[in-house]
């Protein structure tokens, strides 16, 4: 009897767990085991690589206890931050699968399943996902870091290594739980406050912003987590949740590193140890309050999730609610058509491109990831710029614009090859009149309007602040020209119908990616220098003429290169394509 009662719960839990793998990121023809293996390998290899990379130095040096106590604060900060951010990123990527969504309601509502069982199963699956990711992210750092540290600090006893190992694992899992719950709290509270219909409209935007912010934070982590102990725990660092969990880490271990017995030291080593010990002792009183703050943060976010979940539990999505998700006519598209009057096929490409880029989950997530990389690069570049109002504009300041739109346009070029919905391709195929160039022009205009222009506008304020509004406006205009040239260059090698043709992965991508990345960074820096020359009057006319000539040359090259489209609306399963078994 017990088995019969637990049956639906277990079945549903398994179903919801599978959904995490099978949501829109995976094609219906995709191999679930392959996907799981790739995701697992990515998480494990990333954490293994980071642990080995950051800890390798300990195995090759001997450290004084005071020195070790201060310098390891950076690593501890890195590990708790990484655990928190990676888990939060997974939660943000699984955004719609975190609660019972419309699809679940449609399929499961007609079945004789109690809503409580449905919710419990979803809760279990979400908890299992969070726990799984938290453990996967933390297992290698927790094993490797204390063990390697023992080589550098031989005074550490075996039980102290074990204590550190367990502490790191528990605290980092706590940090990961905080990150995971924080994303769920944002989602649940947004749902509770906005109501089903409004939430359905803004939810993709909240998810995109969350991914951009978390992704940028992950990419900035190596910069932020250097010299944490020496720089102190004040200012913006003091308010970071990572700092609170790092304080909990130190509080839990009792800061035993600094108290370890000293071995024989040279005078220089003794001076160094004394200086570091002094630094650590200054920080030491902060750790207990930070630990209490970490507890409060974890408890607080758990409470927020509980309250919001309870509020939302009274309104399990129903078919009627979901179907009321009205999608108004795109005002952007309407305005754009006034600016870009073009052929019917061009308009089709424009509207289709605009819809896919911002509504299709895979495409949106790819762009969000690119935006995260772009913003991280922008922050790194801008960190060395003097933004004082009287500062002179520099090439570094101007480089933030091409870095951002460049990242996004490269991502756009990638998503062009990913079909929006393979099984729906027949609709395009039967209506296709062979106007490939006009259709691609429409898609290109959509990318320019919805990707490049917003990126250019986002970086306008810091440039205006540093160099004045006129300069910033001229920089924006040159940015539009630059983005148009980048777009033309990227589209030069694409001769299929965007978003429809079967996706074929590039064979040599892994080998070429570092070269492309290097070329991109050099290109952005060179373009910024070139722009500076135009904007400061060194070669204004010649520079603008060069840009115009480049654009025209690329258009002509594209027109010549683009043969009559070899349209492929094939529906070949990806696995068969990879193995070359389809004919």
């Amino acid at each position, binding site marked *: 009897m017990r088995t019969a009662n637990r049956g639906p719960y277990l079945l549903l839990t398994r179903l919801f767990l599978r959904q995490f793998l099978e949501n829109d990121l995976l094609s219906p023809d995709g191999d679930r085991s392959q996907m799981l293996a790739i995701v697992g390998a990515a998480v494990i290899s990333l954490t293994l690589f980071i642990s080995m990379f950051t800890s390798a130095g300990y195995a090759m040096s001997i450290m004084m206890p005071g020195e070790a106590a201060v310098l390891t604060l950076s690593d501890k900060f890195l590990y708790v931050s990484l655990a928190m951010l990676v888990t939060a990123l997974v939660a943000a990527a699984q955004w719609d699968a975190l609660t019972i969504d*419309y699809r679940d309601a449609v399929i499961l509502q007609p079945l004789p399943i109690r809503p409580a069982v449905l919710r419990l199963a979803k809760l279990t699956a979400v908890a299992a996902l969070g726990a799984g990711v938290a453990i996967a992210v933390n297992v290698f750092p927790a094993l490797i870091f204390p063990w390697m540290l023992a080589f550098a600090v031989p005074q550490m006893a075996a039980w102290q290594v074990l204590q550190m190992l367990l502490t790191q694992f528990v605290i980092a899992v706590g940090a990961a739980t905080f990150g995971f719950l924080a994303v769920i709290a944002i989602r649940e509270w947004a749902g509770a406050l906005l109501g089903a219909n409004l939430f359905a409209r803004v939810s993709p935007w909240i998810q995109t912003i969350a991914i951009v912010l978390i992704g940028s934070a992950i990419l900035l982590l190596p910069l932020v987590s250097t010299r944490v102990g020496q720089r102190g725990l004040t200012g913006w660092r003091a308010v970071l949740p990572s700092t609170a969990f790092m304080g909990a880490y130190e509080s839990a271990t009792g800061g035993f590193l600094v108290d370890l017995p000293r071995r024989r030291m040279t005078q220089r080593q003794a001076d160094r140890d004394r200086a570091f010990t002094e630094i650590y002792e200054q920080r030491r009183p902060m750790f207990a309050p930070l630990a209490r703050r970490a507890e409060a943060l974890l408890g607080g976010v758990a409470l927020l999730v509980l309250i919001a979940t309870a509020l939302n539990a009274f309104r399990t999505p129903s078919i009627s609610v*979901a*179907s*009321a*998700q*009205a*999608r*108004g*006519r795109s005002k952007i598209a309407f305005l754009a058509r006034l600016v870009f009057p073009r*052929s*019917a*096929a061009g*308009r*089709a490409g424009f*509207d*289709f491109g605009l*819809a*896919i880029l911002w*509504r*299709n989950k895979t495409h949106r997530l790819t762009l969000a990831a690119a935006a995260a990389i772009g913003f991280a690069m922008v922050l790194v570049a801008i960190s060395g710029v003097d933004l004082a109002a009287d500062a002179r504009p520099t090439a570094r300041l101007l480089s933030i614009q091409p870095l951002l739109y460049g990242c996004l346009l490269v991502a756009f070029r990638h998503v062009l090859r990913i079909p*929006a*919905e393979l*099984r*729906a391709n*027949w*609709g*395009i*195929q*039967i*209506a*296709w*009149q*062979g*106007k490939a160039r006009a*259709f691609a022009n429409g898609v290109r205009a959509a990318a320019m309007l919805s990707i490049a222009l917003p990126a250019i506008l986002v970086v306008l304020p810091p440039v205006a602040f540093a160099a004045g509004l006129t300069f910033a406006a001229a920089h924006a205009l040159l940015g539009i020209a630059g983005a148009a040239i980048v777009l033309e260059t990227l589209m030069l090698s694409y001769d299929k119908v965007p978003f429809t043709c079967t996706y074929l992965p590039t064979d040599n991508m892994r080998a070429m990616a570092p070269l492309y990345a290097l070329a991109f960074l050099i290109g952005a820096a060179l373009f910024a220098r070139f722009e500076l020359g135009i904007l400061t009057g060194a070669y204004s006319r010649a520079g603008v003429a060069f840009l115009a000539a480049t654009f025209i040359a690329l258009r002509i090259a594209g027109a010549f290169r683009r043969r009559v489209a070899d349209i492929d609306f094939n529906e070949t399963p990806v696995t068969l394509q990879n193995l070359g078994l389809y004919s």
Partner: protein
Amino acid sequence: MPDLRARKLSKRFSGIRVVNDVNLTVRPGEVVGYLGPNGSGKTTTARMLGGLLEPSGGVVEYDGVDIRADVIAFHRHVGYVPEEPYLYPFLSGREYLQLVGRLRELPEGLLTEKIDGFLRLFSLSVAADQSIGSYSKGMRQKIVISAALLHDPAVVIFDEPETGLDVATTLMLRHLVRTLATRGKAILYSSHILEVVERVCDRVIVLHKGNVVADDSIERLRVLSSSTSLEGVFSQLVIREDPESIARDLADLAATGS
């Protein structure tokens, strides 16, 4: 208006022949029923006739010309209603019809007028701007039918179009098919609902395991098989097992253990 003709059409998937030397002609003003049990090759034939699937053998001709000579030109004359209404779930119904209409290069004013009309007549105006992901199967089917008729095609291929439609829309669809035929359209109507085929079609082609086993008017088929209905004809041609006996076995199996 020209004929749509298939000559010795065949299709193999991974070496397995699913359509075997099918010959058929659909003339203007004629509704040809295409009947067959599940897996008999109806959808595969319909996709080949629509120029969506390359045949392994044989040709499809429109106006006496192999459609492979210019598939795009052929598609200008064809409307296709598939069995499974797979659409882009992130587009609204209106947006999907705009996409199809623009790809077919219909003038913008005419397109707007037609889309509004189709949405109104199919009672989809309220849901027109909702995403297709939230549509029922019937609503999707209505969008697919609208998309197939937007450009006033000379040939319309219906592949089990009544799937998911409510009673009123199914009745309307039958009248629509007949009306289109009276206006000179050549129509292939693939279905397994015998009653609909009997009421709508002038001629019936019966497919069994990829082979055409009958191609004649319903009246003549009745006479030849000494049956009073199309169901009787179909039973004689295609059904090898006794349906009553299988039904009894199924009911017995369902009742097992209760």
